[in-house]
């Protein structure tokens, strides 16, 4: 089962290593991990998507909380949070296919941000399912490269 954890951490060297090391030691696989500063430059937010293995989620949350540099840990409830991921995708786009691809990108509310003679790069934002659907459509044209940011998330309301 995939879970999304949001952690507020002190923006100090070694924090990322401590957190990733902890996940490895406690047998959780990290699917994606993003980190960036918050409104307070001394505090970063990490969004971790992980696959639950041997231990229950509560255990990993508590272990995370034990780290001195970790200020707050919350599990993101899918019904009560918003999550987004950004994907850059480079596909084969010979002139006779370009319009088709542009249409699909528009349908997914993405943007074409680079076009060359034989390829183009599109930028699409959304939740994981949306990005997967878009990527599947691009397979037909031939994907050259994909870069994804991993998910960032915030809880709704409050």
């Amino acid at each position, binding site marked *: 089962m995939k879970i999304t954890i949001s952690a507020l951490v*002190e923006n100090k060297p*070694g924090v990322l290593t*401590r957190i990733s*090391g902890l996940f490895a*030691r406690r047998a959780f696989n990290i699917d994606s991990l993003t980190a960036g500063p918050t409104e307070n430059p001394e505090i970063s937010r990490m969004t971790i998507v992980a696959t639950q293995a041997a231990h229950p989620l509560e255990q990993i949350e*508590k272990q995370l909380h034990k780290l*001195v540099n970790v200020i707050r840990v919350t599990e993101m409830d899918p019904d009560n949070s918003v999550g987004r991921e950004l994907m850059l995708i480079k596909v084969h786009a010979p002139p006779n296919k370009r319009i088709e691809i542009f249409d699909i990108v528009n349908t997914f509310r993405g943007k074409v941000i680079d076009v060359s003679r034989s390829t183009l790069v599109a930028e699409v934002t959304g939740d994981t399912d949306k990005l997967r659907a878009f990527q599947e459509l691009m397979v037909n044209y031939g994907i050259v490269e994909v870069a994804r940011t991993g998910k960032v998330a915030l809880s709704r309301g409050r």
Partner: protein
Amino acid sequence: MKINGAAALIKQLEAEGVTVVFGYPGGAVLPIYDAILDSSIRHVLVRHEQGASHMADGYARVSGKVGVCLATSGPGATNLVTGIANAHMDSIPMVAITGNVPSYNIGTDAFQEADIYGITMPIVKHSYLVKDVEEIPQAVHQAFHIAGTGRPGPVLVDIPSDILKAATVYKAPDGPNLEGYKPTVEGHPRQIKAALKAVRAAKRPIVYSGGGVLRSGAAPELTEFANRLNIPVTTTVMGLGAFPEDDPKSLGMLGMHGTSYANWAITRADLIMAIGVRFDDRVTGRKDTFGSQATIVHIDIDPAEIDKNVPVKIPIVGDVKSVLRQLLAELDEEPIDENRDEWFEAIGKIREKYPLDYDDNGELKPQTAIRLVKKHAAKDVIVAVDVGQHQMWTAQYFGFHSPDRMLSSSGLGTMGFGMPAAIGAQFAAPDRQVVCISGDGSIQMCIQELAVARTNDLPVKIFVINNGYLGMVRQWQEMMYSRRYSEVSLPPDAPPDFVKLAEAYGIRGERLTSVEQMDRALPGILADKGPVFIDVRVTEEENVTPMVKPGGSVSEQVEDEV
């Protein structure tokens, strides 16, 4: 006034109340060793950095203060690793200070460079790599605060040598200022009430207590709690001495080599009060069957221990001493008065039928040797053990009636821990009798620290329970590998000759080979003002019993025998 980083470090150590540091000099820590000459702090020169880490550990266990060890970069730092891991597993407050190569050389594979900050990350409570001389006092202050509060543990402070040499003006830290670190001390009142409600409903309650009780200084509260509720108490090896073992309510140790009546009782209990424990596999055996008939109340300061190994019904997160006081205060309001005659009688029957005993046939058996040490030692003797059969026999047969006297590497199981821990203990309690009970395997893993006992005139008495084997491994090979002994033989007459070895260190060496001789010699040995090393030649193939096989259920030990 401008001073250098090393002097600021020493100043901060003094401010933390440090009076003794165990360490070994080297290139990267030269500035610290220069600054320490002008300090009131006593430095104990070890012979190997691993010894320094175990001494700091033993010192912390007995004094209740944070133990400090110091080493240079590279191999000096990596030699501390075993001791840091040991302190981490047993939750011992320790600050390990290491020098590192100059910051401009970090990452260049410089001479004696090791990424000790990275290497120790999984085995520390927290760590610092100080990159600015101004940060030294604050980092050290935070390190002591983190090591000594909450669930104690080791903290590493790694400082590059150019930072130690850089000029600074010492500025005292204005508090730890740690936003992400706030241990819970008081238990939640609702949980306190829920726990007592469960006790009221219980017919067959038992207290299972551990190292957390000793670390929080809660032995008196635990004893009062058990006495007022009239509940039997079993302890882990880390918890020995938290409850007097000569009290009829004491069931001794539980688990793999626990008493059959402790394991029987915890299997039959309908309420387990787990206090300052972590449901280690050596205690629980098969986890799915452990305490399956019981409501479990778990008191621990570390929320991550709750539900980690065994699901519990009533968790109370908080400092054991505070929580026990809260429970006692509630009991003042509404006492529980139960005689529990039936429960004690049932346990008594098992105890009578399967007492903790061995076949004492008059030979010098290891258990007998340990009982003889007990017979002649001071009442408040501190006992540091190593790891193996002698450790379990000491846990079973010594009988600890008061806290902070049994020093054992219980979580990591570090052979070589005993003698340096005894030395650290002697520095913490110079006027008390300290003995080390070790084995012929373990003692050789840190033997070089005999030099520290000699040069500091420490009256530690080191007993080597010499059975000519790596006994615990031999026992497992006997029981689980059809007696196919593989690399476990250390024949008594093979090198080294322990008596000659002791003498080479300037230490009195004795060899004891019979019960009568040992009984006669011990008063003189224990009264000696200096260190004594005693080679106790015991019978060779004695096993530690009773035993729950690894992965087995603690109830099976009992069922096999009942």
